[in-house]
Protein backbone atom coordinates (compact mmCIF):
# COMPACT_ATOMS: atom_id res chain seq x y z
CA UNK A 1 0.00 0.00 0.00
CA UNK A 2 1.41 3.35 -1.07
CA UNK A 3 -0.74 5.21 1.40
CA UNK A 4 1.92 5.07 4.09
CA UNK A 5 4.24 6.89 1.71
CA UNK A 6 1.69 9.59 1.04
CA UNK A 7 0.44 9.93 4.58
CA UNK A 8 3.74 9.76 6.41
CA UNK A 9 3.63 9.88 10.21
CA UNK A 10 5.05 13.42 10.13
CA UNK A 11 2.08 14.54 8.08
CA UNK A 12 -0.46 12.84 10.32
CA UNK A 13 1.25 14.33 13.40
CA UNK A 14 1.06 17.85 12.00
CA UNK A 15 -2.57 17.21 11.00
CA UNK A 16 -3.56 16.07 14.49
CA UNK A 17 -1.54 18.76 16.27
CA UNK A 18 -1.00 21.69 13.94
CA UNK A 19 1.78 24.09 14.88
CA UNK A 20 1.25 27.86 15.19
CA UNK A 21 -2.48 27.48 14.49
CA UNK A 22 -4.97 30.25 15.22
CA UNK A 23 -4.98 33.85 14.10
CA UNK A 24 -2.66 36.41 15.68
CA UNK A 25 -1.64 39.96 14.72
CA UNK A 26 -0.23 40.33 11.26
CA UNK A 27 0.71 42.96 8.69
CA UNK A 28 -1.41 41.33 6.01
CA UNK A 29 -4.23 38.81 5.93
CA UNK A 30 -5.23 36.70 2.94
CA UNK A 31 -7.99 34.21 2.36
CA UNK A 32 -7.29 31.41 -0.10
CA UNK A 33 -9.64 28.68 -1.23
CA UNK A 34 -9.25 25.58 -3.30
CA UNK A 35 -12.29 25.98 -5.56
CA UNK A 36 -12.40 22.31 -6.52
CA UNK A 37 -12.84 20.99 -2.99
CA UNK A 38 -13.78 24.00 -0.89
CA UNK A 39 -10.75 23.91 1.41
CA UNK A 40 -10.04 27.33 2.88
CA UNK A 41 -7.27 29.07 4.76
CA UNK A 42 -7.15 32.52 6.32
CA UNK A 43 -3.51 33.35 6.89
CA UNK A 44 -1.70 36.31 8.42
CA UNK A 45 1.95 37.23 8.11
CA UNK A 46 3.87 39.63 10.33
CA UNK A 47 7.26 40.81 9.10
CA UNK A 48 10.01 42.34 11.20
CA UNK A 49 12.04 44.92 9.32
CA UNK A 50 11.64 45.89 5.69
CA UNK A 51 13.03 45.17 2.25
CA UNK A 52 15.75 42.51 1.91
CA UNK A 53 16.39 42.66 5.67
CA UNK A 54 12.84 41.61 6.56
CA UNK A 55 12.46 38.60 8.81
CA UNK A 56 9.29 36.51 9.08
CA UNK A 57 8.04 37.48 12.55
CA UNK A 58 4.93 35.30 12.62
CA UNK A 59 2.62 33.26 10.42
CA UNK A 60 -0.78 32.48 11.90
CA UNK A 61 -3.77 30.83 10.29
CA UNK A 62 -7.24 29.44 10.52
CA UNK A 63 -7.90 26.62 8.07
CA UNK A 64 -10.43 24.00 7.12
CA UNK A 65 -9.27 21.27 4.84
CA UNK A 66 -7.83 17.85 4.33
CA UNK A 67 -4.87 16.40 6.18
CA UNK A 68 -2.47 17.34 3.40
CA UNK A 69 -3.42 21.01 3.30
CA UNK A 70 -3.62 21.32 7.09
CA UNK A 71 -0.30 19.58 7.70
CA UNK A 72 1.56 21.44 4.97
CA UNK A 73 0.43 24.79 6.38
CA UNK A 74 1.64 23.69 9.81
CA UNK A 75 5.02 22.64 8.36
CA UNK A 76 5.22 25.93 6.49
CA UNK A 77 5.00 27.91 9.72
CA UNK A 78 7.74 25.80 11.32
CA UNK A 79 9.98 26.38 8.34
CA UNK A 80 9.56 30.10 7.73
CA UNK A 81 8.93 31.75 11.10
CA UNK A 82 12.15 33.43 12.21
CA UNK A 83 13.78 33.15 8.79
CA UNK A 84 14.92 36.13 6.73
CA UNK A 85 12.35 36.64 3.99
CA UNK A 86 14.68 35.75 1.07
CA UNK A 87 15.52 32.47 2.80
CA UNK A 88 11.85 31.75 3.41
CA UNK A 89 11.30 32.18 -0.32
CA UNK A 90 14.09 29.73 -1.10
CA UNK A 91 12.26 27.15 1.03
CA UNK A 92 9.00 27.98 -0.71
CA UNK A 93 10.62 27.56 -4.12
CA UNK A 94 12.13 24.21 -3.16
CA UNK A 95 8.81 22.95 -1.75
CA UNK A 96 6.93 24.08 -4.85
CA UNK A 97 9.45 22.38 -7.15
CA UNK A 98 9.24 19.15 -5.20
CA UNK A 99 5.45 18.82 -5.02
CA UNK A 100 4.91 19.81 -8.65
CA UNK A 101 7.66 17.50 -9.97
CA UNK A 102 5.45 14.41 -10.40
CA UNK A 103 7.97 12.57 -8.27
CA UNK A 104 11.11 13.59 -10.17
CA UNK A 105 12.47 15.80 -7.36
CA UNK A 106 12.65 14.28 -3.87
CA UNK A 107 13.56 17.51 -2.07
CA UNK A 108 16.52 18.53 0.06
CA UNK A 109 15.95 17.70 3.70
CA UNK A 110 18.43 20.39 4.79
CA UNK A 111 16.20 23.01 3.17
CA UNK A 112 12.78 21.46 3.67
CA UNK A 113 13.02 19.69 7.03
CA UNK A 114 9.66 18.00 7.74
CA UNK A 115 8.57 19.36 4.35
CA UNK A 116 10.19 16.45 2.53
CA UNK A 117 7.41 14.25 3.91
CA UNK A 118 5.25 15.78 1.19
CA UNK A 119 7.35 14.29 -1.64
CA UNK A 120 4.69 11.57 -2.00
CA UNK A 121 2.06 14.16 -2.85
CA UNK A 122 3.80 14.83 -6.15
CA UNK A 123 2.57 11.47 -7.44
CA UNK A 124 -1.05 12.52 -6.97
CA UNK A 125 -1.65 15.60 -9.15
CA UNK A 126 -5.08 16.16 -7.61
CA UNK A 127 -3.48 16.72 -4.20
CA UNK A 128 -0.77 19.18 -5.23
CA UNK A 129 -3.10 22.12 -4.76
CA UNK A 130 -3.89 20.90 -1.25
CA UNK A 131 -0.19 20.82 -0.36
CA UNK A 132 0.35 24.31 -1.76
CA UNK A 133 -2.73 26.04 -0.33
CA UNK A 134 -1.03 27.53 2.75
CA UNK A 135 2.22 28.18 0.89
CA UNK A 136 0.53 30.20 -1.83
CA UNK A 137 -1.35 32.14 0.85
CA UNK A 138 1.97 32.93 2.52
CA UNK A 139 3.44 34.09 -0.79
CA UNK A 140 0.43 36.28 -1.45
CA UNK A 141 0.44 37.83 2.04
CA UNK A 142 4.15 38.70 1.94
CA UNK A 143 3.72 40.15 -1.55
CA UNK A 144 0.96 42.40 -0.22
CA UNK A 145 3.19 43.64 2.58
CA UNK A 146 6.09 44.29 0.19
CA UNK A 147 3.80 46.11 -2.26
CA UNK A 148 2.54 48.31 0.53
CA UNK A 149 6.08 49.02 1.71
CA UNK A 150 7.15 49.79 -1.85
CA UNK A 151 4.33 52.22 -2.48
CA UNK A 152 4.87 53.86 0.95
CA UNK A 153 8.52 54.17 -0.04
CA UNK A 154 7.76 55.78 -3.40
CA UNK A 155 5.32 58.15 -1.76
CA UNK A 156 7.90 59.30 0.80
CA UNK A 157 10.39 59.54 -2.03
CA UNK A 158 8.02 61.71 -4.03
CA UNK A 159 7.39 64.01 -1.13
CA UNK A 160 11.05 64.73 -0.69
Amino acid sequence: MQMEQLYQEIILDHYRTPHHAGLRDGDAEVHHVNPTCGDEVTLRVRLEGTGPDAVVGDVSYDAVGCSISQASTSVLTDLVIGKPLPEAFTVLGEFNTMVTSRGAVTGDEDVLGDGIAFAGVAKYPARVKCALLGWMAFKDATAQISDRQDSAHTQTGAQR
Partner: protein
Amino acid sequence: MMIGEATDTAPEQPGAARLPLDAIRADFPILERTVRDGKALVYLDSGATSQRPVTVIDAEQEFITTANAAVHRGAHQLSEEATDAYEGARARIAAFVGASRPEEVVFTKNATEAINLVAYSLSNATFADPAVQPGAARFRLGPGDEVVITEMEHHANLVPWQELCRRTGATLKWFGVTDDFRLDLADLDEVITPRTKVVAFTHQSNVLGTVNPVHVLVAAAQKVGALTVLDACQSVPHQAVDIAALGVDFAAFSGHKMLGPSGIGVLVGRYELLEQMPPFITGGSMISQVFMDRTTYAAPPARFEAGVPMTSQAVGLGAAVDYLSDLGMKVVADHEHELTGLALDKLSALGGVRIVGPSDLTDRGGAVSFVVDGVHAHDVGQLLDDEGVEVRVGHHCAWPLHRRFGIAATVRASFYLYNTPDEIDALVAAVRKCQEFFGVAPAVGAARGA
Protein backbone atom coordinates in the same frame (compact mmCIF):
# COMPACT_ATOMS: atom_id res chain seq x y z
CA MET B 1 -28.00 -4.09 -30.83
CA MET B 2 -27.36 -7.13 -28.66
CA ILE B 3 -27.12 -6.93 -24.93
CA GLY B 4 -26.41 -10.60 -24.56
CA GLU B 5 -28.14 -13.32 -22.61
CA ALA B 6 -28.86 -12.97 -18.94
CA THR B 7 -26.17 -14.79 -16.97
CA ASP B 8 -26.98 -13.14 -13.68
CA THR B 9 -27.60 -15.84 -11.09
CA ALA B 10 -29.50 -13.68 -8.60
CA PRO B 11 -32.89 -15.21 -7.76
CA GLU B 12 -35.54 -13.84 -10.06
CA GLN B 13 -38.66 -12.47 -8.50
CA PRO B 14 -41.63 -13.62 -10.49
CA GLY B 15 -42.58 -10.96 -12.98
CA ALA B 16 -39.74 -8.59 -12.02
CA ALA B 17 -37.29 -7.99 -14.84
CA ARG B 18 -33.70 -7.78 -13.65
CA LEU B 19 -30.68 -6.40 -15.36
CA PRO B 20 -28.40 -9.03 -16.95
CA LEU B 21 -25.45 -7.64 -15.01
CA ASP B 22 -22.66 -9.84 -16.37
CA ALA B 23 -23.72 -9.22 -19.94
CA ILE B 24 -24.03 -5.52 -19.31
CA ARG B 25 -20.60 -5.28 -17.74
CA ALA B 26 -19.13 -7.06 -20.76
CA ASP B 27 -20.50 -4.22 -22.89
CA PHE B 28 -18.33 -1.67 -21.07
CA PRO B 29 -14.69 -2.37 -21.94
CA ILE B 30 -13.29 0.12 -19.42
CA LEU B 31 -14.70 -1.87 -16.51
CA GLU B 32 -12.11 -4.58 -17.18
CA ARG B 33 -9.14 -2.37 -16.46
CA THR B 34 -7.29 -2.22 -13.20
CA VAL B 35 -6.08 0.84 -11.33
CA ARG B 36 -3.42 1.61 -8.70
CA ASP B 37 -1.21 -1.45 -8.96
CA GLY B 38 -3.64 -4.04 -10.19
CA LYS B 39 -6.77 -3.26 -8.17
CA ALA B 40 -10.04 -4.06 -9.91
CA LEU B 41 -11.73 -0.84 -10.96
CA VAL B 42 -14.82 -0.09 -8.87
CA TYR B 43 -16.28 2.86 -10.72
CA LEU B 44 -18.73 4.72 -8.48
CA ASP B 45 -18.58 8.14 -10.11
CA SER B 46 -21.21 7.91 -12.83
CA GLY B 47 -22.91 10.97 -11.39
CA ALA B 48 -19.93 12.93 -12.68
CA THR B 49 -19.61 11.07 -15.95
CA SER B 50 -20.72 7.61 -17.01
CA GLN B 51 -18.85 4.97 -18.98
CA ARG B 52 -19.73 4.05 -22.56
CA PRO B 53 -20.86 0.72 -23.96
CA VAL B 54 -19.28 -0.67 -27.13
CA THR B 55 -22.42 0.15 -29.10
CA VAL B 56 -21.85 3.85 -28.44
CA ILE B 57 -18.16 3.65 -29.26
CA ASP B 58 -18.95 1.66 -32.44
CA ALA B 59 -21.69 4.04 -33.53
CA GLU B 60 -19.29 6.97 -33.35
CA GLN B 61 -16.57 5.05 -35.12
CA GLU B 62 -18.95 3.85 -37.79
CA PHE B 63 -20.17 7.38 -38.42
CA ILE B 64 -16.65 8.73 -38.68
CA THR B 65 -15.45 5.97 -40.97
CA THR B 66 -18.45 5.92 -43.29
CA ALA B 67 -20.51 9.10 -43.23
CA ASN B 68 -18.50 11.98 -41.82
CA ALA B 69 -19.48 15.32 -43.35
CA ALA B 70 -20.83 18.71 -42.27
CA VAL B 71 -24.54 18.34 -41.62
CA HIS B 72 -27.13 20.55 -43.26
CA ARG B 73 -24.53 21.90 -45.67
CA GLY B 74 -23.82 20.68 -49.15
CA ALA B 75 -25.71 18.50 -51.55
CA HIS B 76 -23.37 15.55 -51.72
CA GLN B 77 -24.12 12.04 -50.60
CA LEU B 78 -21.94 12.10 -47.49
CA SER B 79 -23.60 15.26 -46.28
CA GLU B 80 -27.00 13.68 -46.81
CA GLU B 81 -26.04 10.60 -44.85
CA ALA B 82 -24.46 12.64 -42.07
CA THR B 83 -27.58 14.79 -41.83
CA ASP B 84 -29.78 11.71 -41.68
CA ALA B 85 -27.66 10.24 -38.88
CA TYR B 86 -27.73 13.52 -36.95
CA GLU B 87 -31.46 14.09 -37.34
CA GLY B 88 -32.17 10.42 -36.69
CA ALA B 89 -30.39 10.72 -33.36
CA ARG B 90 -32.42 13.82 -32.56
CA ALA B 91 -35.67 11.97 -33.18
CA ARG B 92 -34.67 9.00 -30.98
CA ILE B 93 -33.52 11.26 -28.15
CA ALA B 94 -36.78 13.24 -28.40
CA ALA B 95 -38.82 10.04 -28.15
CA PHE B 96 -36.70 8.79 -25.24
CA VAL B 97 -37.49 11.80 -23.04
CA GLY B 98 -41.04 12.33 -24.22
CA ALA B 99 -40.51 15.53 -26.18
CA SER B 100 -43.61 16.31 -28.23
CA ARG B 101 -41.63 16.46 -31.48
CA PRO B 102 -37.98 16.11 -32.59
CA GLU B 103 -37.72 19.87 -33.26
CA GLU B 104 -38.04 20.44 -29.52
CA VAL B 105 -34.58 18.92 -29.05
CA VAL B 106 -31.70 21.38 -29.35
CA PHE B 107 -28.17 20.01 -29.29
CA THR B 108 -25.68 21.88 -27.12
CA LYS B 109 -22.21 21.20 -25.78
CA ASN B 110 -23.51 20.01 -22.41
CA ALA B 111 -26.28 20.73 -19.91
CA THR B 112 -24.44 23.81 -18.69
CA GLU B 113 -24.63 25.31 -22.16
CA ALA B 114 -28.28 24.29 -22.48
CA ILE B 115 -29.20 26.21 -19.32
CA ASN B 116 -27.11 29.18 -20.43
CA LEU B 117 -28.92 29.09 -23.76
CA VAL B 118 -32.22 29.73 -21.99
CA ALA B 119 -30.76 32.37 -19.66
CA TYR B 120 -29.03 34.26 -22.48
CA SER B 121 -32.02 34.00 -24.76
CA LEU B 122 -34.11 35.63 -22.04
CA SER B 123 -31.69 38.51 -21.64
CA ASN B 124 -31.30 38.84 -25.40
CA ALA B 125 -35.07 39.30 -25.54
CA THR B 126 -34.48 42.76 -24.08
CA PHE B 127 -32.61 43.72 -27.23
CA ALA B 128 -34.70 41.80 -29.75
CA ASP B 129 -35.77 43.64 -32.92
CA PRO B 130 -39.59 43.74 -32.78
CA ALA B 131 -39.69 43.67 -36.59
CA VAL B 132 -37.81 40.36 -36.69
CA GLN B 133 -39.13 38.83 -33.48
CA PRO B 134 -42.40 40.30 -32.31
CA GLY B 135 -42.87 37.43 -29.85
CA ALA B 136 -39.64 38.07 -27.95
CA ALA B 137 -41.16 40.78 -25.74
CA ARG B 138 -42.80 38.22 -23.47
CA PHE B 139 -39.39 36.90 -22.40
CA ARG B 140 -38.07 40.26 -21.21
CA LEU B 141 -36.90 40.52 -17.64
CA GLY B 142 -36.22 43.64 -15.64
CA PRO B 143 -36.27 45.17 -12.17
CA GLY B 144 -39.26 43.90 -10.21
CA ASP B 145 -39.22 40.53 -11.96
CA GLU B 146 -38.06 37.49 -10.05
CA VAL B 147 -36.21 34.29 -10.86
CA VAL B 148 -36.65 31.39 -8.45
CA ILE B 149 -34.11 28.59 -7.96
CA THR B 150 -33.28 26.25 -5.06
CA GLU B 151 -30.45 25.90 -2.58
CA MET B 152 -29.69 22.39 -3.83
CA GLU B 153 -28.77 23.42 -7.38
CA HIS B 154 -25.60 22.44 -9.16
CA HIS B 155 -23.65 25.60 -10.03
CA ALA B 156 -24.75 25.01 -13.64
CA ASN B 157 -28.34 25.81 -12.66
CA LEU B 158 -27.39 28.58 -10.27
CA VAL B 159 -24.69 30.84 -11.69
CA PRO B 160 -26.46 31.42 -15.06
CA TRP B 161 -29.55 32.70 -13.18
CA GLN B 162 -27.47 34.90 -10.88
CA GLU B 163 -25.85 36.35 -13.97
CA LEU B 164 -29.18 36.81 -15.74
CA CYS B 165 -30.49 38.72 -12.74
CA ARG B 166 -27.35 40.83 -12.60
CA ARG B 167 -27.68 41.72 -16.30
CA THR B 168 -31.40 42.48 -16.24
CA GLY B 169 -31.96 43.86 -12.73
CA ALA B 170 -34.34 41.02 -11.85
CA THR B 171 -34.20 39.54 -8.34
CA LEU B 172 -32.99 36.02 -7.54
CA LYS B 173 -34.95 34.04 -4.92
CA TRP B 174 -34.64 30.45 -3.82
CA PHE B 175 -36.23 27.61 -1.91
CA GLY B 176 -34.18 26.36 1.04
CA VAL B 177 -33.50 22.74 1.94
CA THR B 178 -34.94 21.12 5.07
CA ASP B 179 -32.88 19.33 7.71
CA ASP B 180 -34.04 16.06 6.19
CA PHE B 181 -32.61 17.03 2.81
CA ARG B 182 -35.84 17.85 0.99
CA LEU B 183 -36.86 21.08 -0.73
CA ASP B 184 -38.51 23.39 1.78
CA LEU B 185 -41.75 24.27 0.04
CA ALA B 186 -43.51 25.55 3.17
CA ASP B 187 -43.64 29.12 1.78
CA LEU B 188 -44.38 28.05 -1.77
CA ASP B 189 -46.80 30.92 -2.37
CA GLU B 190 -44.45 33.51 -0.92
CA VAL B 191 -41.53 32.40 -3.06
CA ILE B 192 -43.41 31.89 -6.33
CA THR B 193 -45.54 35.01 -6.84
CA PRO B 194 -46.99 36.96 -9.77
CA ARG B 195 -43.56 38.65 -10.00
CA THR B 196 -41.91 35.29 -10.75
CA LYS B 197 -40.86 34.93 -14.38
CA VAL B 198 -38.69 31.80 -14.21
CA VAL B 199 -38.58 28.80 -11.87
CA ALA B 200 -35.44 26.71 -12.41
CA PHE B 201 -34.82 23.60 -10.33
CA THR B 202 -33.20 20.23 -10.38
CA HIS B 203 -35.15 17.05 -10.87
CA GLN B 204 -32.70 15.05 -8.79
CA SER B 205 -29.96 16.50 -6.61
CA ASN B 206 -26.49 15.41 -7.69
CA VAL B 207 -25.38 15.49 -4.04
CA LEU B 208 -28.34 14.44 -1.90
CA GLY B 209 -30.04 12.12 -4.34
CA THR B 210 -33.32 13.86 -3.48
CA VAL B 211 -35.93 13.69 -6.24
CA ASN B 212 -37.99 16.88 -6.24
CA PRO B 213 -41.77 17.09 -6.69
CA VAL B 214 -41.78 18.51 -10.21
CA HIS B 215 -45.58 18.69 -10.44
CA VAL B 216 -45.85 20.90 -7.34
CA LEU B 217 -43.37 23.43 -8.68
CA VAL B 218 -44.78 23.32 -12.20
CA ALA B 219 -48.31 23.91 -10.90
CA ALA B 220 -47.16 26.87 -8.81
CA ALA B 221 -45.22 28.34 -11.73
CA GLN B 222 -48.05 27.86 -14.20
CA LYS B 223 -50.48 29.58 -11.83
CA VAL B 224 -48.44 32.79 -12.14
CA GLY B 225 -47.38 32.32 -15.77
CA ALA B 226 -43.70 31.70 -15.01
CA LEU B 227 -41.43 29.62 -17.24
CA THR B 228 -40.09 26.38 -15.77
CA VAL B 229 -36.58 25.04 -16.38
CA LEU B 230 -35.76 21.53 -15.21
CA ASP B 231 -32.20 20.41 -14.65
CA ALA B 232 -32.66 16.79 -15.69
CA CYS B 233 -28.94 15.87 -15.63
CA GLN B 234 -29.35 13.31 -12.87
CA SER B 235 -32.83 12.07 -13.76
CA VAL B 236 -32.83 11.36 -17.49
CA PRO B 237 -29.91 8.88 -17.20
CA HIS B 238 -31.44 7.01 -14.27
CA GLN B 239 -35.22 6.90 -14.51
CA ALA B 240 -37.95 7.12 -17.12
CA VAL B 241 -38.58 10.81 -17.77
CA ASP B 242 -41.49 12.09 -19.83
CA ILE B 243 -40.89 15.79 -20.27
CA ALA B 244 -44.26 16.52 -21.85
CA ALA B 245 -46.04 14.75 -19.00
CA LEU B 246 -43.99 16.64 -16.40
CA GLY B 247 -45.22 19.84 -18.01
CA VAL B 248 -41.96 21.76 -17.77
CA ASP B 249 -41.16 24.35 -20.43
CA PHE B 250 -37.47 23.47 -20.66
CA ALA B 251 -35.29 20.59 -19.58
CA ALA B 252 -31.52 20.20 -19.83
CA PHE B 253 -29.27 17.14 -19.64
CA SER B 254 -25.81 15.96 -20.70
CA GLY B 255 -24.91 13.05 -22.98
CA HIS B 256 -21.84 12.03 -21.00
CA LYS B 257 -23.89 11.17 -17.90
CA MET B 258 -26.16 8.76 -19.81
CA LEU B 259 -23.67 6.41 -21.48
CA GLY B 260 -23.10 8.88 -24.33
CA PRO B 261 -20.11 10.91 -25.47
CA SER B 262 -18.89 14.10 -23.87
CA GLY B 263 -19.31 17.26 -25.92
CA ILE B 264 -23.03 16.85 -26.39
CA GLY B 265 -25.91 18.06 -24.27
CA VAL B 266 -29.57 18.61 -24.87
CA LEU B 267 -32.06 21.36 -24.29
CA VAL B 268 -35.65 20.28 -24.70
CA GLY B 269 -37.96 23.25 -25.05
CA ARG B 270 -41.66 23.64 -25.79
CA TYR B 271 -41.78 24.44 -29.48
CA GLU B 272 -44.10 27.41 -29.25
CA LEU B 273 -41.64 29.00 -26.81
CA LEU B 274 -38.51 28.18 -28.81
CA GLU B 275 -40.22 29.73 -31.81
CA GLN B 276 -40.52 33.09 -30.07
CA MET B 277 -37.12 33.10 -28.40
CA PRO B 278 -34.13 35.07 -29.65
CA PRO B 279 -30.94 33.12 -30.40
CA PHE B 280 -28.07 32.73 -27.96
CA ILE B 281 -25.07 32.08 -30.22
CA THR B 282 -25.28 33.50 -33.72
CA GLY B 283 -23.53 32.78 -37.02
CA GLY B 284 -23.87 30.18 -39.73
CA SER B 285 -26.72 27.65 -39.91
CA MET B 286 -29.00 29.56 -37.53
CA ILE B 287 -30.18 32.05 -40.14
CA SER B 288 -33.11 32.41 -42.44
CA GLN B 289 -31.83 35.37 -44.48
CA VAL B 290 -28.72 37.51 -44.09
CA PHE B 291 -28.21 41.03 -45.47
CA MET B 292 -25.33 43.34 -44.76
CA ASP B 293 -27.33 45.20 -42.14
CA ARG B 294 -29.64 42.57 -40.63
CA THR B 295 -30.49 38.91 -40.29
CA THR B 296 -33.61 36.87 -39.81
CA TYR B 297 -33.46 33.63 -37.91
CA ALA B 298 -34.09 30.02 -38.83
CA ALA B 299 -36.85 28.08 -37.12
CA PRO B 300 -35.89 26.01 -34.05
CA PRO B 301 -33.92 23.90 -33.44
CA ALA B 302 -31.54 25.30 -36.11
CA ARG B 303 -31.89 28.81 -34.61
CA PHE B 304 -30.07 27.55 -31.52
CA GLU B 305 -27.44 25.43 -33.27
CA ALA B 306 -25.11 27.98 -34.83
CA GLY B 307 -22.04 26.72 -36.65
CA VAL B 308 -21.18 23.18 -37.70
CA PRO B 309 -22.52 21.08 -34.81
CA MET B 310 -20.99 18.08 -33.05
CA THR B 311 -22.08 15.15 -35.15
CA SER B 312 -20.46 11.89 -34.11
CA GLN B 313 -21.36 12.87 -30.54
CA ALA B 314 -25.04 13.19 -31.47
CA VAL B 315 -24.88 9.82 -33.21
CA GLY B 316 -23.20 8.33 -30.13
CA LEU B 317 -25.89 9.76 -27.88
CA GLY B 318 -28.51 8.25 -30.15
CA ALA B 319 -26.85 4.85 -29.64
CA ALA B 320 -26.77 5.43 -25.87
CA VAL B 321 -30.48 6.12 -25.86
CA ASP B 322 -31.05 2.92 -27.85
CA TYR B 323 -29.04 0.97 -25.30
CA LEU B 324 -31.05 2.38 -22.40
CA SER B 325 -34.36 1.91 -24.20
CA ASP B 326 -33.57 -1.73 -24.95
CA LEU B 327 -32.99 -2.39 -21.25
CA GLY B 328 -35.93 -0.29 -20.13
CA MET B 329 -35.55 2.62 -17.74
CA LYS B 330 -37.78 1.01 -15.14
CA VAL B 331 -35.36 -1.91 -14.80
CA VAL B 332 -32.41 0.49 -14.65
CA ALA B 333 -34.10 2.55 -11.92
CA ASP B 334 -35.01 -0.56 -9.91
CA HIS B 335 -31.45 -1.82 -10.06
CA GLU B 336 -30.03 1.50 -8.86
CA HIS B 337 -32.65 1.62 -6.14
CA GLU B 338 -31.46 -1.72 -4.86
CA LEU B 339 -27.81 -0.61 -4.89
CA THR B 340 -28.69 2.64 -3.14
CA GLY B 341 -30.55 0.78 -0.41
CA LEU B 342 -27.57 -1.52 0.14
CA ALA B 343 -25.14 1.39 0.26
CA LEU B 344 -27.26 3.39 2.73
CA ASP B 345 -27.68 0.40 5.05
CA LYS B 346 -24.14 -0.84 4.96
CA LEU B 347 -22.45 2.56 5.24
CA SER B 348 -24.67 3.54 8.17
CA ALA B 349 -23.93 0.24 9.88
CA LEU B 350 -20.20 1.05 9.90
CA GLY B 351 -20.66 3.78 12.47
CA GLY B 352 -18.91 7.13 12.20
CA VAL B 353 -20.40 7.67 8.74
CA ARG B 354 -23.08 10.31 8.21
CA ILE B 355 -25.20 10.23 5.06
CA VAL B 356 -25.82 13.67 3.57
CA GLY B 357 -29.15 12.99 1.92
CA PRO B 358 -32.43 11.21 2.66
CA SER B 359 -31.87 7.98 4.57
CA ASP B 360 -34.93 6.30 3.07
CA LEU B 361 -35.50 5.33 -0.54
CA THR B 362 -38.64 7.37 -1.17
CA ASP B 363 -38.11 9.90 -3.95
CA ARG B 364 -34.42 9.22 -3.86
CA GLY B 365 -31.91 8.48 -6.57
CA GLY B 366 -28.54 6.81 -6.54
CA ALA B 367 -26.20 9.56 -5.41
CA VAL B 368 -25.01 8.69 -1.92
CA SER B 369 -22.96 11.45 -0.31
CA PHE B 370 -21.44 11.04 3.12
CA VAL B 371 -18.88 12.28 5.57
CA VAL B 372 -16.63 10.07 7.67
CA ASP B 373 -16.23 11.50 11.16
CA GLY B 374 -12.63 12.52 11.79
CA VAL B 375 -11.44 12.17 8.20
CA HIS B 376 -11.68 14.89 5.56
CA ALA B 377 -13.49 13.88 2.36
CA HIS B 378 -10.33 14.35 0.30
CA ASP B 379 -8.45 11.92 2.46
CA VAL B 380 -11.30 9.41 2.29
CA GLY B 381 -11.26 9.69 -1.49
CA GLN B 382 -7.52 9.08 -1.56
CA LEU B 383 -7.77 5.95 0.57
CA LEU B 384 -10.71 4.65 -1.49
CA ASP B 385 -8.77 5.29 -4.68
CA ASP B 386 -5.94 3.21 -3.29
CA GLU B 387 -8.43 0.33 -3.09
CA GLY B 388 -9.58 0.93 -6.67
CA VAL B 389 -12.85 2.51 -5.52
CA GLU B 390 -13.36 5.66 -7.57
CA VAL B 391 -15.71 8.20 -6.01
CA ARG B 392 -16.01 11.94 -6.15
CA VAL B 393 -14.95 14.19 -3.27
CA GLY B 394 -15.49 17.89 -2.70
CA HIS B 395 -18.59 20.05 -3.01
CA HIS B 396 -19.65 18.49 -6.33
CA CYS B 397 -20.37 21.93 -7.81
CA ALA B 398 -23.00 22.55 -5.13
CA TRP B 399 -21.12 24.79 -2.75
CA PRO B 400 -24.11 26.67 -1.30
CA LEU B 401 -25.76 23.33 -0.49
CA HIS B 402 -22.67 22.18 1.40
CA ARG B 403 -22.51 25.52 3.22
CA ARG B 404 -26.17 25.04 4.18
CA PHE B 405 -25.18 21.91 6.07
CA GLY B 406 -21.95 23.36 7.44
CA ILE B 407 -19.82 20.85 5.55
CA ALA B 408 -16.83 21.81 3.42
CA ALA B 409 -16.76 18.61 1.40
CA THR B 410 -18.44 15.24 1.09
CA VAL B 411 -17.59 11.89 -0.47
CA ARG B 412 -20.07 10.86 -3.15
CA ALA B 413 -20.63 7.38 -4.50
CA SER B 414 -23.01 7.30 -7.46
CA PHE B 415 -24.30 4.23 -9.21
CA TYR B 416 -25.34 3.16 -12.65
CA LEU B 417 -26.67 0.14 -14.44
CA TYR B 418 -23.27 -1.57 -14.58
CA ASN B 419 -22.59 -1.44 -10.82
CA THR B 420 -23.00 -4.54 -8.69
CA PRO B 421 -23.83 -5.35 -5.07
CA ASP B 422 -20.23 -6.60 -4.73
CA GLU B 423 -19.03 -3.13 -5.59
CA ILE B 424 -21.10 -1.71 -2.75
CA ASP B 425 -19.30 -4.14 -0.47
CA ALA B 426 -15.96 -2.98 -1.88
CA LEU B 427 -16.95 0.61 -1.12
CA VAL B 428 -17.97 -0.21 2.44
CA ALA B 429 -14.82 -2.25 3.07
CA ALA B 430 -12.65 0.59 1.75
CA VAL B 431 -14.38 3.13 3.98
CA ARG B 432 -13.79 0.83 6.96
CA LYS B 433 -10.13 0.49 6.00
CA CYS B 434 -9.88 4.26 5.76
CA GLN B 435 -11.34 4.65 9.24
CA GLU B 436 -8.75 2.21 10.54
CA PHE B 437 -5.91 3.98 8.73
CA PHE B 438 -6.82 7.28 10.35
CA GLY B 439 -7.53 5.67 13.69
CA VAL B 440 -11.20 6.64 13.83
CA ALA B 441 -12.88 3.25 13.33
CA PRO B 442 -15.69 2.73 15.83
CA ALA B 443 -15.82 -0.66 17.51
CA VAL B 444 -17.72 -3.13 15.34
CA GLY B 445 -21.44 -2.90 16.05
CA ALA B 446 -21.08 0.50 17.76
CA ALA B 447 -23.33 2.14 15.20
CA ARG B 448 -26.40 0.25 16.35
CA GLY B 449 -25.97 1.12 19.99
CA ALA B 450 -25.07 4.77 19.39
